């Protein structure tokens, strides 16, 4: 990242450049400057990046190719009815764009992502591919024990790539760094929920997404400057509806689609973009065994998510609570085409929202979209129906 970036607007522009660069130039440069350093990719949704940091490795978010890539090879491996991010991620790999990676982590989020892990293993035999199985029996005390062991297993793999044993100090340090990063992100989200007219989602999103690519310390400084800049902004809200966006936790919508929602008359109070990177509702405690602390935080302090089946409380209750706390007028259910977990949550959300008389709009998208006329019309009609009701 260029030195001397100062205004919030400049930061947005630079971050957008970083996240839209599918050659991962910033990571490549970083690697060239740190010849011994290793890089591990993190497929969505949640990856315990602290473990990666503690092993002295740079974690990098791998979110497919968005609308910047043409699928020429991956569609021979994955069928038409599989979501786009699975194919575009494989395409990144098959076209050599991920050759800077030493490893990649996949997670138990859905069947296509899991099978993608296998396909990566076969097609890139020198890459360290690991698959984390997150517990789904979260009410059981056994889940914490299990996940702690699972993290230790993952750590052993990372130690091999990193070439050094991971110390407890390094883990504690990583947790506290990520705590700092996440608390800045939470601050931005809180600020945005209160004054969405000062911080459009189309700006917030690329700024945070850049944090999945840049070294964390560098990004923390960037967030601090950005936060200051946004705080200095002034302006009056326009006549728009205030919405929550739900459903884009894995495959990400194009930035221009997010902008389109806003231009069509929505203020986004909250969203689930990049959800896995923001995962925790509060800091991960750093007393006691850090690996166990991370596992425990997953079970007790993480956000609700379509890929985490926490039967202690219904997801729709979480959603409704968010609607009430933030005072949203409506929910935009923004789901990538063929996304199994998101699409499955929808009927339950719809039922709960209708019962609670919260209006909602269902929008399907694909990351590779670049024309948004249809969506714009749908959103405009929806907004009008609420504003002039």
């Amino acid at each position: 990242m260029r030195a001397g970036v100062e205004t919030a607007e400049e930061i947005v522009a630079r971050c957008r450049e970083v996240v839209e660069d599918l050659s991962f130039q910033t990571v490549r440069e970083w690697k060239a400057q740190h010849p011994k350093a290793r890089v591990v990719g993190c497929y969505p949704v949640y990856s315990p990046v602290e473990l990666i940091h503690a092993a002295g490795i740079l974690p990098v978010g791998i979110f497919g190719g968005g609308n910047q890539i043409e699928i020429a090879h991956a569609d021979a491996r994955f069928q038409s009815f599989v979501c786009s991010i699975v194919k575009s991620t494989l395409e990144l790999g098959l076209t050599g764009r991920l050759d800077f990676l030493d490893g990649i982590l996949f997670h138990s989020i859905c069947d296509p992502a899991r099978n993608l892990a296998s396909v990566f293993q076969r097609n890139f035999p020198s890459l360290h591919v690991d698959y984390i199985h997150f517990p789904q029996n979260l009410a059981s005390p056994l889940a914490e024990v299990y996940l702690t062991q699972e993290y230790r297993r993952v750590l052993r793999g990372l130690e091999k790539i990193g070439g050094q044993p991971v110390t407890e100090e390094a883990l504690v340090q990583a947790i506290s760094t990520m705590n700092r990063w996440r608390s800045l992100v939470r601050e931005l989200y809180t600020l945005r929920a209160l004054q969405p007219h000062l911080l459009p989602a189309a700006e917030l999103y690329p700024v945070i997404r850049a944090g999945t690519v840049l070294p964390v310390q560098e990004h923390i400084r960037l967030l601090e400057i950005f936060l200051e800049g946004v705080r200095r902004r002034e302006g009056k809200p326009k006549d728009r509806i205030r919405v929550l966006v739900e459903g884009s936790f894995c495959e990400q919508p194009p930035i221009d689609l997010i902008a389109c929602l806003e231009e069509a008359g929505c203020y986004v109070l909250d969203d689930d973009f990049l959800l896995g990177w923001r995962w925790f509702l509060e800091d991960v405690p750093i007393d006691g065994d850090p690996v166990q602390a991370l596992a425990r935080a997953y079970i007790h302090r993480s956000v609700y998510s379509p890929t985490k089946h926490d039967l202690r409380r219904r997801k729709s209750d979480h959603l409704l609570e968010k609607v009430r706390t933030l005072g949203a007028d409506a929910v935009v259910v923004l789901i990538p085409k063929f996304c199994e977990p998101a699409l499955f949550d929808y009927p339950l959300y719809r039922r709960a929202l209708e019962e609670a008389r919260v209006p909602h709009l269902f929008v399907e998208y694909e990351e590779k979209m670049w024309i948004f006329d249809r969506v714009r019309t749908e959103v405009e009609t929806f907004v009008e129906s609420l504003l002039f009701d």
Partner: protein
Amino acid sequence: MAQQAMGSRYQGRIHLLQKELMGQYFQELTQAAENGGPPAAYMLISGNPVELVRAFGMLPVYPEVNALQLAVKKESLPYILLAEQMGYSVDNCAYVKADIGLFFNGLRAPFATFPKPTLILCNYVGCNVYLNWFEHLAEYTGATIFPLDIPFIRDPAQGPSEEDVAYVVGQLEELIAVCERLTGRPLDWERLKEVVRLSQQTGQLWAEIKHLTKNKPCPLDAYFDAVTLMGPLYCLRGTEEGLAFFEEAYREVEERVRHNIGPIPEERFRIVVEGPPPWPYLRTFRDLFARWGAVAVASTYSTVGGMWEFGFAHDPEKPLESIAMHMLYWNLTNRSLLLRYQQIRRYIEEWEADALVIHSVKSCRLFSAGQGDMREYFTKELGVPTLLLESDLEDPRYFSEAQMRNRIDAFFESLEHRKIRGHPVEAAVQHSNFSPGEGEAR
């Protein structure tokens, strides 16, 4: 083209007996729904722990089997549409939609009425859709749900770790406590051992049947006929009737081997089939292969509920551990795609198959996502002729007979030429020493 008469298929005693047994099973469920009966435990097929449910005297109900029956009887579409009206996506697994439709139709299907669940046992073995499905059922019914979390096999070379096994056994103990509360009685461990012993014997017979299909001619179609045996394997495993059925099945298959009888008059191609069948068009689909004299000698689909042919058996002396191992490792669904490549490769080599047929179904991404890579591996790495077909296992809207026929005909025509020119596929297999689980490729 030397095609055989249409519709020639094996209809032996097994099929009649199966019909009778499954009829009784559905009657029992209907009886329980209408007049009360033992508490019903809803469960999923993959690596199902039916032994525990049986030991508590509960009735196992498998929504997948119910959805499948709807499809076989060509009744699934209205149920699917009902769910789609509620907001379920056209792109989500149609088993789930048919079942949700069934629930909102008062649990009434043309062939049975189903009891409401007392326990929703979400045995999360591989399929992530399961979690959604049973979460929804729990919300709609208000019944007690227990999510039995089975860690996926992350290390193909090692299998499940000791910690994984202990984690599952610990959860089974929690599950026992839940069942004790729901049924109001403590677990009878002797009874459990007895059920597990019945399972052990049943599994062994099933494994032996699967090895009999190595014979030439293959005595029964390991895809189309094997699915007939799967109903009793899941619904009646751990019961005396279930065991008796498999004894009878074994006798019959063995007798057919002795008399050189196959499911079609002349076995011309031996195939391995990967993926679930298109239930709404099962017969049509079968005939498309039968007319070419193609017989399945092995199939992956018949291992979703459990994989017995490679040495697994339940152990009555270690009931919980062996149930845990069954769920963790000895089934297809909890294994990675690469382990599935190995499984198929073994079938091709040891069962001496000529080709691989992949039936790619839209509903089930557990099976289908990445099957293009599988085709790549088998054709390019191993030189195994591979046919990839697409339709669905439940939704009749995705089956095009004409297209299927064209692709199947073209495939077998070229396979026939290949045979005539004398290119045995075994040779191609032997030249490659790639073994996917070991992470070596290309």
